């Protein structure tokens, strides 16, 4: 399956449009990681736990979007966009959406 964030798949021709597909996840890290992040707030620097958390949930959101596109019979998703929003302290929602298409 091709995924791009451009309007078309470079080097391929779009034959059919299937409409918008999307995937989302809401995740929180366990309390231990939150505590570590609190300590890191004194020293500054990267919060590895949170980076991992967001990366994992992003991968899962992409997987959900892919399976939705597959159900429609598409073989590519173009114009993929990400959006992140914090729903509560320590939990964040990742939303991925794009247009499912068929390419040659």
């Amino acid at each position, binding site marked *: 399956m*091709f*995924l*791009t*964030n*451009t*309007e078309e*798949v*470079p*080097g*391929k021709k779009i034959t059919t449009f299937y409409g918008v597909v999307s995937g989302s996840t809401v995740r929180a890290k366990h309390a231990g990681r939150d505590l570590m*992040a609190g300590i*890191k*707030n*004194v*020293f*500054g*620097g*990267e*919060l590895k736990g*949170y*980076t991992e958390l*967001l*990366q994992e949930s*992003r991968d899962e959101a*992409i997987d959900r979007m892919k399976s939705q596109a597959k159900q429609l019979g598409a073989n590519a998703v173009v114009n*993929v966009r*990400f*959006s*992140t*929003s*914090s729903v509560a*302290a*320590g939990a*964040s929602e990742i939303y991925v959406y794009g247009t499912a298409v068929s390419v040659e």
Partner: protein
Amino acid sequence: MEQLIIFGILISLGYFFGRHAEKKHYKSIQEREKHWLQLPTTSSKYVLEDDRIIDHCDLVNGSMVVSVDYFKRILARLRNFFGGNIQSYETLIDRARREAVLRLKESCPEANQVINLRLETSSITKGSGKQIGSVEVLAYGTAVYFCK
């Protein structure tokens, strides 16, 4: 009195560790940016001029969550009173952006080009009032592979 001592300790911890980490990080960013210059990256939607035929393409992303240290937070609070550039936050977000782009490039070492690079910033834990707690920077784009 006790509070003042704790405050002093937190500030000096933030100052020394934060500065050390920032210097180290900037050094590694500069080195890696030099190395990754070989991978052309643009924010344009079209593939850069090339005679080769495109084999396939893929979505790639890189991200980093970064937090301010205690010393910078105090500096920023002072700046909020007087107004003006909050330089301590500028360098923080600059570091996160450059690191995110580098991670994106490191995730696709075989690619020939990265097109349509987009950057997104979101604050994931809000501090009290106007303060920012930690910031996430996400870089995403389309990696293009040419036929060999």
